[in-house]
């Protein structure tokens, strides 16, 4: 009985959420809010992909913004110089970011915790320096301008209201497939590596191979986010892809609870929307991220297991529903 009501509840919640998400651009919200909504989707992709390596597999990366940047620049350059179609740019951006992630991971995944963080931090710095100094290709600090908007089925997705659907489609598709993957043997193997590498090896998990693969996949998804960002902003410069951005993404993952995909999504929503919505807040954005990181660790508010917010919220709502049902019974009895 309980299981059945749970399933119905889930379906209902899913339908409501889908309706809200699909109809959001039709509600006549301002351009500002819709732009923010697109950013939220992009950051959800970044946070969930970093959560895959850092939360699920337990490998702290401090260079996630670099793969975001590689995706953005590859996509922008391909569409500017070769005038390729948006979808091809997107796919190649994912491939480029994935391959660079793979190349970084090959040496880096032989290293443990802190070393890996340093190497990824260093890699982020290298990418930033290259973007800034390879002026012939990237125009350096001036950035790339005039990136074309995507055109699909003869429609140009330029306004935030229409681009929202592109972001929505790609993010939801990626998230669903990603969820499948994490829920399967591959995800379990990574969690096993996070919890105890020795025992994981004894159970036949090829630790090095799985870690490298996870890092490459996570980088490829950051590349998709980069491509979505470039074709939405229509202008990119290196300052968006600095180390601070990597830390911001890591804060989202930590706030959402390491390893929890739903948590990452919720945290990306909150941490992307809040600084934009509160005026004068952006000055303190990084400070607050830093405080969040430390506070989450110290208060042990992070749930290392997977009792994510969603589950707890759901339990809470269920309790309310049960209470209402009981009340109803009470009323009926009273009426009888």
């Amino acid at each position, binding site marked *: 009985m309980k299981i059945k009501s749970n399933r119905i509840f889930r379906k209902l919640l899913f339908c409501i959420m889908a309706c809200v998400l699909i109809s959001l651009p039709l509600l006549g919200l301002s351009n500002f809010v819709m732009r923010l909504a697109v950013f939220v989707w992009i950051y959800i992709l970044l946070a969930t992909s970093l959560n895959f390596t850092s939360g699920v597999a337990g490998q702290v990366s401090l260079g996630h913004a670099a793969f975001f940047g590689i995706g953005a620049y590859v996509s922008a350059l391909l569409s500017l110089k070769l005038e390729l179609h948006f979808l091809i740019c997107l796919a190649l951006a994912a491939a480029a970011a994935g391959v660079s992630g793979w190349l970084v991971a090959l040496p880096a995944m032989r290293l443990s*915790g802190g070393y890996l963080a*340093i190497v990824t931090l260093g890699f982020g710095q*290298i990418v930033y320096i290259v973007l800034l100094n390879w002026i012939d290709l990237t125009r350096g600090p001036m950035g790339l301008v005039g990136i074309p908007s995507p055109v699909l089925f003869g429609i140009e997705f330029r306004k935030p209201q229409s681009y929202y659907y592109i972001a929505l489609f790609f993010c939801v598709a990626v998230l669903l497939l990603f969820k499948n993957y994490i829920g399967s043997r591959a995800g379990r193997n990574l969690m096993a590596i996070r919890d105890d590498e020795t025992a994981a090896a004894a159970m036949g998990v090829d630790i090095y191979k799985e870690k490298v693969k996870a890092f490459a996949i996570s980088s490829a998804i950051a590349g998709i986010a980069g491509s979505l960002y470039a074709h939405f902003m229509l202008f990119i410069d290196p300052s968006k892809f600095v180390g601070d951005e990597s830390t911001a993404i890591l804060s989202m993952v930590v706030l959402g609870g390491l390893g929890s995909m739903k948590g990452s999504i919720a945290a990306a929503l909150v941490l992307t929307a809040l600084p934009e919505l509160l005026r004068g807040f952006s000055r*303190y954005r990084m*400070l607050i991220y830093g405080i969040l990181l430390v506070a989450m*660790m*110290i208060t042990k508010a992070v749930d290392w297991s997977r009792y994510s917010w969603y589950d707890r919220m759901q339990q809470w709502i269920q309790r309310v529903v049960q209470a209402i049902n009981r009340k109803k019974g009470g009323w009926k009895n009273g009426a009888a």
Partner: protein
Amino acid sequence: MQFFTQQVVSAIALGSVYALTAIGYSMVFGVLELINFSHASVFMVGAFLYYILTNIAALPGLPAFLLSVLITGFLGVAVEKITLRPLRLNNQPKFASLISTIGTSIILQNIMFLLMGSETLPYQTLFPGQSISLGETRISYMQIVIVAVSTMLLVSLSLFIKKSRAGMAMRATAQNYDAAELMGISVDSVISLTFFIGSAIAAISGIFVCMNYQSVDITIGTSFGLKTFAATVLGGIGNLGGAVLGSLIIAFAEVFTAAYINTSIRDLAAFVVLVIVLLVRPNGLLGKPVQKKV
């Protein structure tokens, strides 16, 4: 030839400054097996304190220097007490401590940013423009002071660790944390001492760097932090001699890249060296491989 020797002189000066910061990383890693990301920000705060004390509080050079070193030392102790000790006492995984130090680093950086802004500020140096000439090579007084003070500090520190009681307690803790505690060593105070020394020396290093370049800005933490860390790993983390060796190599790589290839990619050299070393010898040049316990 003159150009070459000039570069050697700057590389040695830079390398000895790097070594001071690198030792902080190495000491903390030795005791806690933790990479302390906040070390770079502590370094930056030390450099800024001197700026604040000399320019805003208008103190003379030497008291300002000593005071900023002392305050930074205590800052390091406070950082450990607030952001790391609770995790250690609760047996949280290393992962949590790592993230905590990353967070601390960002907090310190942004407090400094909010207080001082992001502009590059002029830095008071000790002997502006004074130098001696050896043949055709010019060596500034500042460079001489840097190398002399760094060498002195490194020697006295290694003597302290080898000979003194506190140093012995430190080594014991580094060898085996739990056993040291059982033998009646107060591990908490050893760790506090480690953070104090590491941070104080980082402040000295930060002040020297800024005196050398005669300017300070809030990004020095990130760039110097990464390079000195590269130096630490290169030499073999947890090994003081390694920290010095690695620092010199990184400094040479950086100075010569800037001099002979391109100034704008000088920071790249350090990371390229780091990646190569990690590929070939993950434990660094002087580090020992660790046998994994099953």
